[in-house]
């Protein structure tokens, strides 16, 4: 019978509907099998790519807009202001209105700009964002790609965003943009090192680079608790250097508005500016996601040893909520940085990286290796 798959599909839905919240593969596996049974494997792949792509586009827009709104509310909270409060309840539609405005704005052509590079620079930044988003485990089974070098892949991909920034600064034919781009280049190249080493500390502890296994290994306890002091040091270094990596205050040298007006995107307008702006926030989301996954257990609930009742309550909260909660906690920390600290100078920024964070990191890796060799971690 041609419609046999319907029976198998329906059978997947038996039981309480909320079980998908706890294991998303219960939903995706039957769909995948149904597709495989109905069309050729090639078309299965194509359809799945399109569906996942559309979902990511929506996710990207929603997260980006929400983070812009959240940032405005957080900074308003710190600065004794109200923040956006006119459009929609508590101003939640403000960013959508802003986006619509930016969509309709004229894109001003720049005289003597390298128009090809100038036009593709924002897209490079956006593409890199999507590539990094694909590898993050959002919940149990909610994972676009899961392969054995996941964290290595994310590091490799996210460091490519500097190409877009450099191209934007170089092609704008503006001196502020050029200085901003050069600063950004120096900054990202330096801090990429710290991020990599801080994550290697955790890779040593977990023994794998596959993100789903890293999360699974934290079922008995998050790595920040498991790894003693080296894991905490690695976490602090990671948060500092990832703030620098995404060009946010107090490390926002690349767009230092009081020195370089807007840095590398000074000359951009309309939706192209919006791309840079959104990419900045999605970058923040990505680094916070990695921090949550590597140090705070990703979507894994918080467990305390043999406290069964407590653990059951924690398990009841769906993994996606855990993941979002941890990610937004890190994002909140990064936002607090920006709105309470003055900006560093470029040479102080590089000094911090090469003279302090890097040596501490290297020693930290040694200590962690020693701990793992001796089996002293939990």
């Amino acid at each position: 019978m041609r419609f046999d798959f319907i029976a198998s599909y329906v059978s997947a839905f038996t039981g309480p509907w909320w079980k998908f919240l706890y294991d998303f593969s219960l939903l995706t596996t039957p769909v995948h099998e149904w597709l495989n049974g109905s069309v050729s494997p090639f078309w299965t792949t194509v359809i799945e790519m399109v569906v996942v792509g559309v979902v990511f586009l929506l996710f990207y827009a929603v997260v980006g807009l929400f983070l812009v709104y959240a940032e405005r509310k957080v900074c308003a909270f710190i600065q004794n202001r109200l923040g956006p409060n006119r459009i929609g309840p508590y101003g939640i539609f403000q960013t959508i209105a802003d986006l619509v405005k930016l969509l309709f704005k004229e894109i001003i052509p720049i005289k003597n700009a390298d128009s090809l590079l100038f036009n593709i620079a924002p897209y490079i930044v956006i593409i890199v964002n999507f590539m990094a988003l694909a590898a993050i485990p959002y919940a149990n089974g909610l994972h676009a790609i899961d392969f054995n070098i996941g964290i290595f892949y994310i590091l490799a991909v996210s460091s490519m965003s500097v190409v877009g920034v450099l191209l934007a600064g170089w092609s704008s034919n503006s001196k502020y943009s050029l200085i901003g781009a050069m600063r950004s280049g120096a900054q990202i190249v330096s801090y990429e090192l710290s991020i990599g080493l801080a994550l290697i500390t955790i890779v040593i502890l977990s023994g794998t680079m596959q993100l789903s296994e890293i999360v699974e290994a934290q079922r008995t306890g998050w790595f920040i608790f498991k790894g003693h002091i080296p894991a905490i040091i690695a976490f602090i270094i990671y948060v500092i250097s990832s703030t620098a990596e995404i060009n946010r205050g107090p490390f926002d040298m690349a767009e230092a508005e009081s020195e370089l007006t807007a840095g590398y995107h000074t000359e951009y307008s309309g939706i192209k500016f919006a791309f840079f702006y959104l990419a900045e926030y999605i970058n923040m989301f990505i680094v916070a996601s990695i921090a949550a996954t590597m140090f705070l257990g990703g979507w894994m609930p918080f467990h305390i040893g043999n406290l069964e009742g407590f653990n059951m309550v924690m398990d009841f909260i769906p993994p996606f909520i855990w993941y979002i909660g941890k990610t937004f906690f890190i994002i909140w920390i990064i936002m607090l940085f920006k709105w309470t600290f003055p900006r560093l100078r470029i040479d102080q920024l590089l000094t911090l990286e090469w003279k302090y964070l890097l040596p501490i990191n290297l020693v930290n890796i040694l200590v962690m290796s020693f701990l793992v060799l001796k089996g002293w971690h939990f």
Partner: protein
Amino acid sequence: MEEKVEIIATDEKQEFIVNMGPQHPSTHGVLRLVVSLQGETVKNIQPHIGYIHRGIEKMCESITYPQIIHLTDRMDYLSAHQNNESVCLLVEKALEVDIPDRIKVIRTIMSELSRLQSHQLFWATFGMDLGGQTCYFYGLRDREMILDIFEETTGGRMIVSYNCPGGLMYDIHPNFQKRVKDFIKYFRKKLPEYDTILTGNVIFRERTSGIGPLTLQDAISYGITGPSARASGLSCDVRKHEPYSAYDKVKFNEVLFSEGDTYHRYMARNDEMRQSMNTIEQLIDNIPEGPYAVKMKPVIKLPEGEYFQRVETARGELGLFVISDGNKNPYRVKFRSPNFVNLGVLNHLAKGFKIADLIAIAGSLDFVIPDMDR
């Protein structure tokens, strides 16, 4: 023409010329700095002024003395009250008018309130120049309260025009004393917050201490005045050396440091806020009774001669020089404005430091551009 030649010449030296301004977020107005850079390091700065030149000195030659007061508001708009006072003091000195104590005391309180709000705005914008945007909102929150006090008594918030030759435009508002006292009580509690968010911050210390040091020698030879000079140890407070209004009756300290770097220029202003509050507290309860203005002739004519009066504004020493030919209009007016003179030292201070330091140094000199151009 000369400027063009020089820019081409520096270009051959492989220097990177950046035009900062006239529209730039950190020049606090329409100041244009032509900065030549080598990498991030500042090699040379050419300030270009005149974008907001209104010819105030020339305009003064065709208007009467009471009218001049309203132009002085528009020079250093953050020290509007002190600017007004300079004209009034000069006219009163020339005509040898005796000013009752009440007027003197109110003028002093108003001057100090002006200084306080100016330093609050300095603190706010200096924090923003260094990238700490929260400072801006903290500073403005407290400054609003002083502006409200001004508004209640004088009708204006920034452009007060409260003085007139022979006294004040109107008497103080009945609420004035209470509100000033309330404000001081409030601000004494808030000032430690300023230190928590900015002064004590390690990044702020790193960014400012040792940056753009101004020696006592240089401060004298460049003619720097105000808190910027006092941070280098130059005792130049007109309120101390040549007391006017009621400054001879109050006790306050001249804030002096010896280091003269950006951090101490900031600290000098920070401490002056405390001194201003002390001064106001001494006077606010002892405002004598009496008229708020002395009756002057309807048309004020200064006797033939040359007159000079200086006052201490929030940014330094404002000198007013007037030549009178006995008419109701002055023959020639010259303002020695503190900002114009202080700008001269910028190149000397910022040379060899980074772009970010240039912003910090310019911020610590606390420029008000309309005062440079007049």
